[in-house]
């Protein structure tokens, strides 16, 4: 199969053509994708926030943001700007250092996880061999930050929120990891690129949802809980805990939490689409169409189109999932803490284990379908 566009390779080659050594060319290349991902993920968050507001409004028969830019697109930007200019308050008896580090520890791993998100075969920062595992490891750093900020705020609501967030993350990380494990077993790799490639070739029919329906549901529920989205938003349940661990935060530190939660949301949606919905693969494979018209895989314009379709497809699937998550927010009421833990430990964990076992058995019996 054709590897598609290799931006890094061509960039380095062209720089070497100017007489630069290979190492220097690579050093020049390195910050570029990082910058693009940082900017891209922030823009993705703005879109997610805008979508959340618009979809929420529509679900409640309102209009939503309307006058801030066309259709209110700039509303999230205005939100962010407002938070930047707000006074940054540290409560008198709070632990200053922990209070400041909390939001950072929450945000950094989430942004770091974008390292492994592929938008095309070569359109990712780094194809880490243990891609998905890295994401799981990074996402388990987040509850430390939440607990830290909850504890450092010196506020009972913050502390309760932080504790809840930790309990929730711990409970749902395991079914999440088990669901991912089943996928990894089928694709014989932890790398996100390999996982998507394993689903490619058959369009819609080749996606992992059909092979892992239970895994998909488990992963989706667990991802919702990891993002602290409704119905699992009880760490910041405003009716009981004011705002949970965010209670004492304002200004830029609150903005970090806000940003982190939405980056996490888009990241989870991205990973659901990568692991289960075929990532950058179109419902009808582009390769199939091009081969019916007898166009070679190496045609430059076809490669550009394939790359563009790949990015478009990934984003389309991601935002469809975000839309669904927002819809869920206005449909399902919040669960109680005991219900949450019961669901996590007594339902998702056994089902995820059974799913893993069944996947292993099916892989042995039908290696053709479940990745030999």
């Amino acid at each position, binding site marked *: 199969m054709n590897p598609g566009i290799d931006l890094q390779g061509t960039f380095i080659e062209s720089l070497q053509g100017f007489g630069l050594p290979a190492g220097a060319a690579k050093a020049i290349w390195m910050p570029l994708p990082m910058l693009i991902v940082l900017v891209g993920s922030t823009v993705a968050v703005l879109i997610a926030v805008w979508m959340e507001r618009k*979809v929420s*409004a529509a679900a409640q*028969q309102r209009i939503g943001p309307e006058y801030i830019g066309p259709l209110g697109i700039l509303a999230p930007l205005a939100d962010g700007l407002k938070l930047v200019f707000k006074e940054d308050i540290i409560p008198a008896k709070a632990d200053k250092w922990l209070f400041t580090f909390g939001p950072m520890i929450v945000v950094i791993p989430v942004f770091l996880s974008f390292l492994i998100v592929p938008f095309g075969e070569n359109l990712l920062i780094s194809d880490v061999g243990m891609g998905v595992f890295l994401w799981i490891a990074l996402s388990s750093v987040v509850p430390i930050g939440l607990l830290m900020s909850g504890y450092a705020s010196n506020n009972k609501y913050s502390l309760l929120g932080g504790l809840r967030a930790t309990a929730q993350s711990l409970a749902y990380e395991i079914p999440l990891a088990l669901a991912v494990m089943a996928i990894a077993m089928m694709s014989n790799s932890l790398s996100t690129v390999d996982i998507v490639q394993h689903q490619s070739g058959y369009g819609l029919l080749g996606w992992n949802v059909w092979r892992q329906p239970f895994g998909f549901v488990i992963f989706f529920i667990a991802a919702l809980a990891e993002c602290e989205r409704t119905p699992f938003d009880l760490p910041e349940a405003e009716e009981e805990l004011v705002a949970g661990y965010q209670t004492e935060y304002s200004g830029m530190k609150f903005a970090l939490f806000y940003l982190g939660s939405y980056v996490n949301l888009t990241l989870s949606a991205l990973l659901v689409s990568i692991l289960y919905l075929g990532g950058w693969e179109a419902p009808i494979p582009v390769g199939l169409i091009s081969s019916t018209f007898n166009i070679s895989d190496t045609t430059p314009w076809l490669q550009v189109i394939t790359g563009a379709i790949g990015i478009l497809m990934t984003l389309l699937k991601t935002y469809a999932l975000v839309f669904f998550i927002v819809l869920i927010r*206005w*449909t399902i009421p919040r669960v109680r803490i005991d219900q949450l833990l019961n669901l996590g430990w007594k339902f998702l964990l056994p089902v995820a284990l059974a799913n893993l076992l069944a996947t292993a058995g099916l892989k042995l019996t039908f290696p053709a379908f479940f990745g030999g």
Partner: protein
Amino acid sequence: MLKFLKQVGDYTKDVVQSAKYIGQGLSVTFDHMRRRPVTVQYPYEKLIPSERFRGRIHYEFDKCISCEVCVRVCPINLPVVDWEFNKTTKKKELKHYSIDFGVCIFCGNCVEYCPTNCLSMTEEYELAVYERHELNYDSVALGRLPYKVTDDPMVTPMREFAYLPKGVMNPHNLPDGSKRAGKTPQEIVAETQSAQKVAAISEGSSEG
């Protein structure tokens, strides 16, 4: 073993049922997305208050006879009537009159009982001020008439739900001259008056 299997089966049934309910709920929320927004874009569009709207109270200083009925019927004795007995004319002389709309509950009792009709309800409801004492209206402030929503060139007036034609749910882009369902008060008055006239004429003719 059988008992365990039954438990598993029951649990699965529960799960399927709850999934069904969640699906139903999602279909309801999804259906709401295609419904028309019910909101009015407030500072640019405003609803026309109904003719019985109980807004800020209007007061005519010259009509007032300082009888203090408004104070007595008020649940909290709110209106302040400052008068003095003039011994030469042997009449009450009204000096000041005020109502604090920060405290008023707009029950309309004072308007109802005022013997000289010097109190009346307006359709003004935008009483936002910078300080609560500004809501204490004196006789001059009470005498001001509010701007009508329909006269304001900045505002698109919207009819309230009860004033829309039959079956219409949306106040936007109504055709000109569309009338609300049922008779208007003016029509009812005109009808009763003409009926009375007819009755009077027939009575007169039977007598004559």
